[in-house]
């Protein structure tokens, strides 16, 4: 879509939207990518769904995802695999893989996803869309089937930065149904888009340019930094020294929180089908055993262990301390700069089945996880292509509740490049 379209044409009213199947939709089956919720028809709308409906958005349907948002490739969906529109042998990323692929393939104007450790930004990078994870508390989580309640946040995918801004405008703000949604005023994001980056202080974190970073991704990010400098931004190196511990802390905290939520899910919704006197724990265990996939079971076991008596301080307590250190890193950096620029992922979209080892899969989120641990906003914007034509994601990280600066920076970068003119053959 050309940039010349009028503001009126940019109203959600004109947009056909679709949702990751993690959001409760009244009267429409909501599975969270899991067999255990097959047949669950919520009697209520998630707050963000109600807001999009109220804004006149046309909801086309629900999108595939990793089961309970646990995964980085959408291969953990209990139902089917989703392919990357740029190369059908590759994954779209995850866990919001369906949301990214649908936008990249022109199946929807914009979509919603959720991001707990990178689940919006990583698929946005892999599929070449804009993807925004707002600040924790910026958008209501009511009606979002939780993965890890202290990390989850709802956010949009758009074909470009302006569409992501429009979607954020529609869903942001305090919700009385979510006590963790913050009573912070929501600025006019469309107005922020045109501000440019002249004089903006941009930080480049040393710890995000490390061994294992794909040289083509690094080259693209360095080129993007040069583009921002050309546009008048002042760049400087910053240090986020606890970055390398983020991943380990995340894989204690997120499974710990998930282990609680999953028990809740097994108990509710479709109800317990067992009969007879022994209707409690045996029945729930049987349902959970048959209903959950391998990755969900792995994380529930990890989390239950980390929270068990005698191990709580060693694992969960320690991980929470690391979380504080990661947040302090960012706070110190943001005393010096307005926005941080980094790669979204160490590499580009990998082939299906390539990462069978869970640890290899987890490493994919090394640059996105610290942002969730710190509760900050992060945005991935299309930052170029590899020689073989795969999209590369440029990540912008901002101060708490300062999504406007991310959008403004991304928009300026987008306007100075022509990457968006390329389309996957599928959608041409």
């Amino acid at each position, binding site marked *: 879509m050309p940039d010349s379209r009028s503001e009126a044409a940019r109203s959600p009213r004109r947009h056909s939207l679709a949702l990751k199947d993690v959001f409760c939709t009244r009267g429409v089956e909501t599975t969270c990518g899991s067999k255990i919720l097959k047949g669950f028809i919520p009697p209520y709308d998630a707050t963000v769904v109600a807001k999009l409906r109220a804004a006149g958005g046309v909801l086309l349907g629900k999108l595939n995802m990793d089961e309970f948002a646990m995964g980085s490739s959408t291969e953990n969906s209990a139902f089917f695999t989703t392919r990357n529109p740029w190369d059908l042998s590759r994954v779209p990323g995850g866990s919001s893989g369906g949301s990214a692929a649908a936008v990249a393939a022109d199946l929807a104007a914009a979509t919603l996803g959720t991001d707990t450790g990178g689940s919006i930004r990583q698929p946005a990078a892999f599929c070449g869309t804009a993807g925004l994870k707002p600040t924790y508390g910026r958008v209501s989580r009511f*009606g979002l089937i939780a993965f890890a309640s202290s990390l989850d946040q709802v956010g949009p995918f758009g074909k470009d930065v302006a569409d992501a801004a429009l979607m954020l405008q529609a869903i942001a703000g305090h919700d009385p149904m*979510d006590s963790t949604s913050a009573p912070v005023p929501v600025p006019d994001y469309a107005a922020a888009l045109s501000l440019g980056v002249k004089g903006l202080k941009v930080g480049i974190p040393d710890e995000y340019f490390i061994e294992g970073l794909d040289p083509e991704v690094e080259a693209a990010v360095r080129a993007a930094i040069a583009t921002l400098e050309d546009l008048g931004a002042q760049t400087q190196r910053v240090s986020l020294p606890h970055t390398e511990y983020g991943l380990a802390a995340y894989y204690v905290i997120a499974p710990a929180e998930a282990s609680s939520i999953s028990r809740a899910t097994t108990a509710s919704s479709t109800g317990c089908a067992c009969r007879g006197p022994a209707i*409690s724990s045996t029945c729930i265990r049987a349902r959970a055993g048959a209903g959950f996939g391998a990755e969900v079971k792995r994380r529930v076991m990890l989390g239950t262990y980390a929270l068990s008596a005698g191990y709580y301080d060693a694992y969960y307590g320690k991980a929470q301390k690391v979380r504080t250190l990661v947040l302090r890193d960012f706070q110190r950096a943001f005393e010096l700069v307005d926005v941080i620029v980094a790669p979204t992922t160490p590499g580009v979209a990998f082939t299906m089945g390539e990462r069978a080892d869970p640890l290899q899969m987890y490493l994919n989120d090394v640059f996105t996880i610290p942002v969730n641990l710190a509760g900050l906003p992060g945005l991935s914007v299309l930052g170029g292509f590899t020689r073989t034509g795969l999209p590369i994601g440029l990540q912008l990280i901002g101060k708490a509740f300062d999504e406007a600066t991310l959008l403004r920076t991304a928009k300026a970068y987008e306007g100075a490049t022509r990457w968006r003119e390329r389309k996957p053959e599928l959608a041409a």
Partner: protein
Amino acid sequence: MSDAYEVVIGLEVHAQLRTRTKMFCGCSTAFGAPPNTQTCPVCQGMPGTLPVINRRAVEFGIKTALAINCTVNADNRFARKHYYYPDMPKNYQISQYEEPLAEHGYLDIEVAGASRRIGIQRLHLEEDVGKLVHEGSLETAQSSQVDYNRAGVPLMEIVSMPDMRSPRRRPRI
């Protein structure tokens, strides 16, 4: 009872707070309604729902805490207490463990004409569970039905210190 043993009694009292609505949602707490007519996605523990605390329940808890000389904590923490039971829709009860509403109180009672001080360890807020209705007797029932009208009704739990030495010294609250 042999003199070798000393009777030591502490009490854990669960009291319903007489709010109009439930602890974490807007459903009515009125008693005696037909089964499952006072429920919503939140108190049924549906996926995606979140709790919002009842202001009146906190106020009632604080009033009680002050009446029994407790220190009210400025920071409160709620936690999930996990266990499986069919009348508990979420498979966890939202309760307080660390940082309860109030702590370190006492209640003076009269025992045989003399005043005696019973320590109060803590007072915290939590939610009630639903109700199981067995078809037939508990032993022979082939099925049970669950009424969630009571699920989420506000409770306060008052825990005394083990300061009582005779059943006759139980305070009347």
